């Protein structure tokens, strides 16, 4: 039978394909920036709201440190540094991948996943990068400000090596965030959103902005090995403000990021297979 034979698509190596997908992601981002520039007022309102939220949290910290000069051996400035640091990967995650947070609702319940599956681009890349959330930029700016202030107060003198480590740790920590919420999104292939886990877990992030040693051992273990938010702020930040005994764990952050992401991606793939075989 000599029917019409459709081409199997452009022949690309794995790396060429990755490069091409990256170009698409950049195109998505450029489009997004263009639309957002139209809504400058929204951006300013977001910024103001964020400033207020962070201001309240900082005020709480200040009041707390008015009574106690140190928190389980951590000075106010050190706590402030970790707090500021925590906002950087969080901002990165919010900016780029917040889509994954509302995956169950937006993609499964509203049926947008079908549209994603009709395009020749990796479905996860589309979901992660299809839209962006500018308020993430606010968090990044605020975090940088707070961290910078704390660094000056602590008289930190980062060398070139520290800056290189910083440049690796922040995206690694953002990867941990993304992996956790990707895992939750993937679970919704089985449970839809009946579990409603994403909002409470997002709230747990707040606990992870402080030195974990202020919590009991159980909480520390939970945040390190089960819900790995220890790796989004406290552990990587200790590279800069921690004592030598905790500091060495900071360098494990990229490894943890990759591991958690690999795990989450495996669950995601299984979930996607389930979706295409059940349609629900």
């Amino acid at each position, binding site marked *: *039978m*000599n*029917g*019409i*034979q*459709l*081409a*199997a*698509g*452009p022949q690309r190596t794995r790396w060429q394909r990755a490069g091409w997908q990256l*170009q*698409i992601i950049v*195109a*998505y981002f450029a*489009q997004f920036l*263009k*639309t957002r520039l139209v809504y400058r007022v929204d951006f300013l309102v977001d910024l103001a709201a964020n400033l207020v939220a962070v201001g309240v949290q900082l005020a709480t910290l200040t009041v707390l440190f008015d009574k106690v000069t140190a928190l389980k051996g951590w000075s106010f400035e050190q706590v402030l540094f970790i707090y500021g640091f925590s906002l950087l990967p969080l901002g990165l995650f919010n900016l780029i991948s917040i889509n994954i947070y509302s995956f169950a609702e937006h993609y499964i319940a509203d*049926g*947008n996943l*079908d*549209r994603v*599956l*009709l*395009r*020749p*681009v*990796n479905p996860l890349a589309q979901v992660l990068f*299809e*839209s962006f959330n500018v308020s993430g930029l606010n968090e990044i700016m605020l975090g940088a400000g707070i961290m910078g202030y704390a660094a000056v107060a602590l008289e930190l003198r980062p060398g070139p090596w520290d800056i290189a480590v910083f440049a690796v740790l922040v995206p690694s920590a953002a990867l941990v965030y993304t992996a956790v919420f990707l895992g939750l999104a993937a679970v919704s292939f089985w*449970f839809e959103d*009946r*579990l409603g886990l994403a909002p409470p877990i997002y709230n747990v992030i707040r606990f992870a902005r402080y030195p974990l040693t202020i919590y009991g051992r159980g909480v520390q273990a939970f945040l390190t090995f089960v819900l790995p938010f220890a790796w989004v702020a406290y552990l990587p930040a200790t590279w800069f403000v921690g004592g030598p005994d905790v500091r060495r764990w900071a360098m494990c952050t990229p490894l943890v990021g990759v591991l958690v992401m690999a795990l989450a991606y495996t669950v995601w793939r299984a979930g996607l297979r389930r979706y*295409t*075989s*059940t*349609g*629900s």
Partner: protein
Amino acid sequence: MAPLITVDRLTKDYRLTVRREGVKGGIVDLVRPRKRILRAVDEVSFTIDPGEMVGYIGANGAGKSTTIKVLTGILTPTSGEVRVGGLVPYRQRQSYTRHIGVVFGQRTQLWWDLAVVESFRLLQRIFEVPEDRYRSQMAFFAELLGIDEFLNQPVRKLSLGQRMRCDLAAALVHEPRVLFLDEPTIGLDVVAKENVRGFLRRARDTLGVTVILTTHDLGDIEQLCRRVIIIDHGKVLYDGLLEDLRRGPGHRLRLCLDLAEPVTAAALAAATRDLPVQWESDGAHRHCALFSRAETTAAAILSRVLAAHRLRDMALTEPAIEDVVRRIYREGLQPGQEANLE
């Protein structure tokens, strides 16, 4: 001609979770869900040739959307096989998407916040459409769909009709070989429907695209498709020409006569007693003959009537396609139509 699309004993089962009641039931559901299997598509087979425009119709829940989802690669079948131009949609999904365009009438494929033109530019990037091809496609869409009037508006500000025109164009911007349309005229007013139908005719003739169309609006089918596949409870009820469906023995034409003098129905029945005709009367002057094309002709009836009576006016009406389809759902196929089933 070798077929472009081959669907071979396609079957798709859904496992539905049957929810228990109450809070306790909800917890039990999480641990031990109660499942029920629903066969949405049951051993469906058909082939479609390049350039055909086929109407795929059925009631709600008949299995239309499931078939389309398998054909577009979104769903994997439980059993059976689908091939489109040598590709298996659900196994080579990402490559396959380059060759198909899909319009879901109820949902847009465009980016809600982007201006229309930006959506098209993104699609151009995603489907790697060369600039010259892109320009000529856009010119074609501007001419036939008038989308150039609102290219700079965000998609969410478009009316439903405008959005549908954009969705049609978006589905075709990469010059696919196959276009899947799921309810493309749903919710549109008469004028917008006509626009969409006119465009689809031109797209088929100009671009040579093969079209599969599901719809509730049988007007779409009548105006666009020579061939229809009717599906009900997951099975193919009819696959053949729309015309044959209408000419089948079970579907009767209506020949209405306006006579110059009053006549009784009995007199007309007597005049045509050698023909299989049923008379209905609407007053003494107006009478309608119901007959099947397979059994007799309007000419035969007329000649018998004219031999004895003077005619003032007459009208011959085809059965409405809605009635034909409704009848198939209700009664199944008439014996003469089974030949059309594969």
